């Protein structure tokens, strides 16, 4: 053990260096967020004059009194921002609820019910995971056009009812966590299939239900391409499309755009950070255990 001393020195250096590297990386990660928050709270002049917070005589040498909610006020008063928040919230909740329910039902059938064609269907679900969404963009547009679903919310929600990814996740979760014996005894007691599903099966996979609700909610909230292609009426647009248009129209109004981006990002982010354990476990189930 010639170099054990060297290793010990290295280890000691590590206990100081590793936190230093990690906290620097954390600072770099948070800096854009912090910049966005301060830009949203500053007037136009202060945006150019100061990098983060305006200097002054308040606490920590900062002119707190110069911070303003004016950008937010203009968003809601002139740009009808409240309506776009409601659009996004409605679209995301509706999509998340419908997609989770249909995925859980499909996953349950594949995991626990015996029927002709189960093997082929399971194989099909797996296979369809590989099809990239962009391949369906152009023909999907034509289908929506033929069905007269363009410029409607149905045109956004109905295609999201078939996430092969969700069906696959729920199948994986139910195969192991839902015991066949419980289902059998419930059937002998005369419980209907629907009742078994809602009263016994869903509660057993509650973590997966939560994770998948969050994944689809976030995915819909952040989706830009689909609403951009499907919707035309300005008053129906979700925040994602609205912000990109705002950027196009008022490209020099930094405070306004950062305020809009802030509102679009932060509430959803806080909610997810609170529930991050479930969310992350949902994300990694397929990868690590699959």
């Amino acid at each position, binding site marked *: 053990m010639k170099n054990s001393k060297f*290793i010990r020195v290295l280890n000691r250096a*590590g206990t100081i260096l*590793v936190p230093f590297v990690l*906290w620097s*990386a*954390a600072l770099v*990660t948070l800096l*854009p967020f912090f*910049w966005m928050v301060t*830009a949203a709270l500053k007037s136009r002049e202060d*945006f150019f004059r100061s*990098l983060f917070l305006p200097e002054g005589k308040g606490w920590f040498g900062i002119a707190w009194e110069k911070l303003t909610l004016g950008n937010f006020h203009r968003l809601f008063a002139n740009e009808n921002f409240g309506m776009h928040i409601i659009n996004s919230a409605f679209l995301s909740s509706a999509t998340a609820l*419908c997609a989770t329910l*249909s*995925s859980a*039902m*499909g996953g*349950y*059938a594949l995991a626990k*019910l015996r*029927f002709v064609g189960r093997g082929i269907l399971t194989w099909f679900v797996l296979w*369809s995971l*590989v*099809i*990239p969404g*962009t*391949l*369906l*963009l*152009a*023909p999907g*547009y*034509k*289908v929506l*056009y033929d*069905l007269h679903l363009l410029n409607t919310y149905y045109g956004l929600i*109905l*295609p999201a*009812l*078939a996430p092969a990814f969700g069906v696959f996740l729920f199948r994986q979760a139910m195969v192991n966590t839902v015991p066949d014996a419980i289902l059998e005894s419930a059937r002998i007691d005369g419980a209907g299939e629907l009742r078994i599903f809602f009263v016994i099966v869903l509660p057993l996979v509650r973590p997966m239900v939560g994770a998948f609700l969050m994944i689809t909610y976030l995915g819909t909230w*952040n*989706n830009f391409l689909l609403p951009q292609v499907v919707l035309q009426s300005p008053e129906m647009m979700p925040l*994602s*499309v609205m*912000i*990109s248009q705002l*950027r*196009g129209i008022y490209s020099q109004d930094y405070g306004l755009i*950062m305020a809009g*981006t802030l509102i*679009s*990002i932060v509430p*959803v*982010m806080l909610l997810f*950070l609170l529930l*991050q354990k479930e969310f992350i476990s949902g*994300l*990694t189930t397929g*990868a*690590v255990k699959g």
Partner: protein
Amino acid sequence: MKKVSAQLAAWLFLTPYLLSTVVFLLWPLAISFDLSFKQTFGPGHAEWIGWDNFRFLLSDPLFWKAATNTAIYAACSVCIQLPLSLCLALLLNRPRLWAKGFLRLVFFSPSLVGLVFVGVLFSMLFEKRTGLLNRLLVVFVPGFNIDFAWLESYVMVSLVLASLWLYVGFNMVYFLAALQNVPNELVEAAMLDGASAWQRFRHVVLPEILPVASFVVLLSLIGSFQLFELPFILLNGAGPDNQGLTIVMYLYSTGFVTGDLGYASAIGWVLSLVLMMFAAGQRWLVRKLEK
């Protein structure tokens, strides 16, 4: 009688999935196959032209420009982003680290932000004179020109920087989950045998996390090859001299700006074939590793 009702129940449970799969997956797939042999003018009119779309694609300089850009971006994702993610995960996985949960939260938080919002945020961060990046660089790098235009002269660098901020923490989560699944006894045994930190990583940890790592590579390749929103918003289009044109952006603009859904479908099929090859390659690799 009971058998029949059990069969029926299964199919009823599958109805929402099956209906929307047929209408919004299989039907579009069939249409897309048909469309890729047609020239279209908006969703209403189409004309059969055989293999011309694919023939044109092979000699289309814009398509090759888009393909090259996308491939460079994908290579950067795999070669820069993933090693950084792995490093972060390895550092975070050290025992007795203070505020581990908080740090993990911080690194993960950018991946909750949608690509559009990242695009808008970074288009302002990268702006000359007013953007955060140049204003910081002026302070720390002597002689740096505050009018340096990232989004005009260093399009790909800007894209990769933004994607690093967005995805390093996301991929880190997968690596961290994999590292936590490595049996501690294995690492301790290697330590007793006097293996150095690098040897432990190379011969004990790496083989254990390789299946997850290959999955992360696949995810990141698939994501990179479908890159669209980030450059579309960040550069407000394809960028100067089409330096930020990606395959999906080209697909979008031929389909929905030019109105040629047929050529867009052909591009979609070529892209899909490439992605399916990646997926097949990953499965082959995992199977080989398991042996």
